């Protein structure tokens, strides 16, 4: 008799613990304003990433198509996995001197681990982290980018 009573009480206790858990889930069913889900592809227009978010490396250009990159190659040295290749060229300045300038700043997004070491090392602040995070492409070759825009040149007054 005692064993039977114990058995029944265990069953009721067990059901009680299940109900305790269901009370929590029930609470959230009837208070949907506690939900935190973002409707991601639909909210693309309003979705704003944090300022420091590391999405990809970009080079900023001003309205005259000028950038700040001197082609010094410090970012290339600091990159741990060889995502950055600097191809520099020699240019003649107005005084007739030869000066190094950037020809192509090649960036392999597919190899990049977004560690921020290149941006930290850049002496002129030419490259920054972009906020874009939708990097899916159909072809791997599309992940190799040239960061300086065609026809762009270095802004006045930037020194190495």
């Amino acid at each position, binding site marked *: 008799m005692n064993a039977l009573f114990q058995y029944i009480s265990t069953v009721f206790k067990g059901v009680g613990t299940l109900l305790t858990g269901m009370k*929590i889930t029930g609470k959230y069913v009837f208070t949907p304003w506690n939900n935190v889900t973002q409707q991601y592809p639909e909210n693309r227009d309003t979705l704003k990433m*944090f300022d*420091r978010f590391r999405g990809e490396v970009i080079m900023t250009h001003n309205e005259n198509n000028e950038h700040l990159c001197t082609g010094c190659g410090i970012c290339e040295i600091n990159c741990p996995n060889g995502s950055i290749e600097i191809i520099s060229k020699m240019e003649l300045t107005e005084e007739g001197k030869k000066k190094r300038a950037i020809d192509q700043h090649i960036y392999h997004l597919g190899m990049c681990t977004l560690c921020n070491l290149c941006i930290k090392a850049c002496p002129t602040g030419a490259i920054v*982290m972009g906020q874009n995070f939708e990097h899916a492409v159909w072809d791997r070759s599309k992940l190799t980018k040239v960061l300086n825009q065609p026809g762009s040149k270095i802004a006045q007054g930037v020194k190495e």
Partner: protein
Amino acid sequence: MSETKEIIITSDKIHTDEYLVNMGPQHPSTHGVLRLLVRLEGEMVHNIQPHVGYIHSGIEKMCEAISYPQVIHLTDRMDYLSAHMNNEAVALCIENALQVEVPERVKYIRTIMDELSRLASHQLWWCVMGMDLGALTTFFYGLRDREHILDIFEETCGARMTLNYSVPGGVMFDIHPNFQKRVKEFIKEFRKKLPEYDQLLTGNVIFQERTNDIGYLSLEDAIAWGVTGPSGRGSGFSCDVRKHQPYSAYPLVQFEEKLATKGDTFTRYRLRMEEMYESLHIIEQLIDNIPEGDYAVKMKGVVKLPEGEFYQRVETARGEFGVYIVSDGKKNPYRVKFRSPGFSNLFALNKMAAGHKIADLVAIMSTLDLVIPDIDR
């Protein structure tokens, strides 16, 4: 028919009444590509032989080709749930070798980040533990609260998991102006949410039946197999590096090293839940008192360690993590070795699970909180 029988009997490795079953490498409850070779008799587990190396990425070897500041970002990818502790271990090792004293502010920031990482890791462990035992609800509740911590990380460090926030001599950025406010909001909210975890899972009769009195690990075995972290402390092995060899701001805060003696699966579960309260307690002590000052000391452009061997250990969410650097005075390390907690903890699994049913193996493995890239490196 008679031929087959003869082969089975003459083979001294395979017995007629035992199965050899591969659990993994694509098993959902091994949390990654872990392969366990399980020797079964019916449902009973006789022996477990873990086979590692399916996600071996050669991080230690890669470190030999890159400079010291670059080593840090690779450690994110080992134990990705305690990324900041791994970063800090390498940074501390380099700082000790160069005898650089970091500002107080850095110590505070690093400790808060450590504890936030620990909370995020334990939250993920909790929700995955429920999911392994068939309670999918916990998965959503755990991830919901973890999202707040990841937002804090994203705002200050720029990434959600692969933080790369510690650098030799300090941290990469100063904390975001919103950081303190957000952390305080999170603590206030999470203190309310944490009892919900207990109500949802801890008291649940199915969960109790499946975790109580299984997977015993004795204190002797825990020490012999080097089981550290909450898994080792569940057996009474006092191994908290934060207490025994304090680093960063841990000497300044009051906290308790949670210890239990029973050593079964439920004890390890309970201990991790207690640790979450301790982490909240540590953050509360530090968050209002972050001293003003620099967020990093200026280091040389090329970091070169003096010749010699350097070792630093920290407490990650899984246990003791060690960094061993051999330097020959050049800008690259000569050899780097990481002592990862997951590797040692995994190999004690045979001690815990042998003699139990195969369904219990999943529960026991869950409380070890394995992260596979941490094991394989």
